[in-house]
């Protein structure tokens, strides 16, 4: 680049040069959209809904959630039915009707985490925040989408698992009717617990921002720490264990708990769990709003 054509800037254009800003056309931001309304939360929700369903990981995760949740419950009930009937397991047959939850909760965590960490991983988060600078709305919309989808997926999975698993238990005469104590509550509770876990993972993802790290922390908190905590000594140790999110929230999703650690009553536990999720989400929103995207 030396010599020649660098001078050819500022070609003749109407209204340049001496023109002031005054004779520049004022553009109406709404000119392409007659009668358009200012976007509100519904628009943000719609956007998040579109985002959620237009990546492959969503369908994979939900497929896996159903397969693990309903499939494993059925499989384990088939394998354990005769032992349960003989009373050899030392567990109530009711505990086995939601056995697959142990694994379906992992996919709920993964889905909730990915909804935000995949945006950080790809740089999408910048597009999201430029489109919707009110970041609290973004998080709220994501939480609503996750709650609705995971609630439905959780209930559907639990019902399918119940139908499949109970068929084998019935054959051995230890099946439970829908009207039996805790069965309907657990089927509904599956949806509630998984929805709560999804939002929990969303909050963890927002705070940590890296998929692998957020997933590890989420799973460790819900599964590993939850189990290890039962080894803590004394009544305070028992309380810590009972109050940890996985233990507190899980009870509502099970017809009857497995033997071992003490758990809170189902709805009390879910109340604690919901409060913990809400608190974590609040912290995540506050951090997200302050942070550079």
């Amino acid at each position, binding site marked *: 680049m030396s010599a020649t054509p660098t001078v050819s800037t500022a070609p003749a254009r109407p209204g340049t040069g001496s023109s002031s800003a005054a004779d520049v056309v004022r553009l109406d931001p709404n000119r*392409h*959209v007659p009668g358009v309304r200012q976007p509100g939360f519904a628009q943000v929700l719609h*956007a998040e809904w579109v985002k959620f369903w*237009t990546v492959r*990981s969503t369908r994979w995760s939900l497929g896996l959630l159903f397969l693990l949740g309903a499939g494993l419950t059925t499989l384990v009930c088939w394998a354990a039915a005769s032992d349960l009937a003989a009373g050899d397991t030392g567990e109530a047959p009711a505990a086995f009707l939601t056995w697959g939850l142990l694994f379906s909760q992992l996919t709920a965590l993964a889905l909730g985490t990915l909804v935000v960490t995949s945006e950080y991983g790809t740089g999408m988060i910048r597009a999201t925040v430029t489109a919707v600078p009110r970041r609290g709305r973004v998080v709220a919309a994501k939480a609503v989408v996750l709650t609705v989808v995971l609630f439905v997926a959780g209930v559907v999975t639990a019902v399918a698992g119940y139908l499949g698993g109970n068929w084998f238990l019935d054959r051995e005469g230890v099946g439970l009717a829908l009207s039996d104590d805790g069965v309907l509550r657990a089927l509904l509770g599956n949806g509630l617990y998984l929805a709560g876990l999804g939002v929990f993972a969303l909050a963890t993802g927002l705070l940590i921002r890296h998929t692998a790290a957020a997933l590890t922390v989420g799973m460790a908190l819900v599964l590993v720490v939850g189990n290890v905590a039962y080894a803590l000594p004394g009544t305070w140790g028992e309380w810590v264990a009972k109050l940890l999110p996985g233990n507190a929230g899980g009870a509502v999703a099970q017809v009857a708990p497995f033997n071992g650690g003490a758990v809170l009553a189902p709805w009390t536990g879910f109340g604690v769990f919901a409060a913990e999720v809400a608190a974590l989400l609040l912290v995540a929103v506050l951090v997200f709003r302050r942070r550079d995207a």
Partner: protein
Amino acid sequence: MIVARGLTKTYGPRTAVDHLSFTVEPGRVTGFLGPNGAGKSTTMRMILGLDRPTSGSVTVNGRSYAASPAPLREVGALLEARALHPGRSARDHLRWLAASNGIPRTRIDEVLDLVGLEAVAEQRVGRFSLGMGQRLGIAVALLGDPPVVVLDEPVNGLDPEGIRWVRNLARELAGQGRTVLVSSHLMSEMALTADHLIVVGRGRMLADCSMADFITEHASSYVRVRSPRVSDAEALLRGQGLDVDRLDDQLRVRGRNAAEIGELLGGAGLYVHELALVQSSLEDAFMTLTADSVEYATHPAETAGAVR
């Protein structure tokens, strides 16, 4: 219109943007120029409300970006790094963006057509080339038909045809009365696109002037004259009050254009072997201006002197 006042951003001890004040006017292309690491992208991120200024402020159309109820209809932005999910199709990416700001779906086809991506709209963007990604980014920027357009390094990764397209697009948008801010680290590119220049280095303002002023001030030009009777030519031109430098057998003349100098010499019966306008490039001017503020300076090899 974009107005920055005392805009500052520090990351720990490092100051990325240092008290920048400028106004980006509508109806012209404003080039935002500086070497890598000069703070261009940080400034643009602050304009878009992605980063929070440490101090100072920047407003778009009189208010902060975040205060806009439908920002995509007010400001369109192409961000330097790709900001999209590779698994989503181009159309789906535009769909959620349109949904978020209440932009009708018909506009999606309009912008896809505008950037020439309609044939690959259903493809996952992870398969897109760099150039296609840039085109999609520009489609995103124009989705809301915004009066303010901010393009961060828009020609990165584009082929010559694409570069020309972006250049014309920027000029066209400005011609329609929009505010257009285009960042680049290439002076040569800016020279062809921008009417106005904002030059930064190490976060500080180095120049804020029209392109024409920048050229007059920073890029020197002269007429090179070769003549068999170089001493006579020199004396003649000096006698006309022109600024003449002599290097061996050539003269560098400033103050008249080549035609006038040719006529002067011809009138005196002097043969002329060469008569040429030499313009030192804007690139050189830019390099000189920003020499002190290059973040990762390279040091020329010892033999480099021989090249000049």
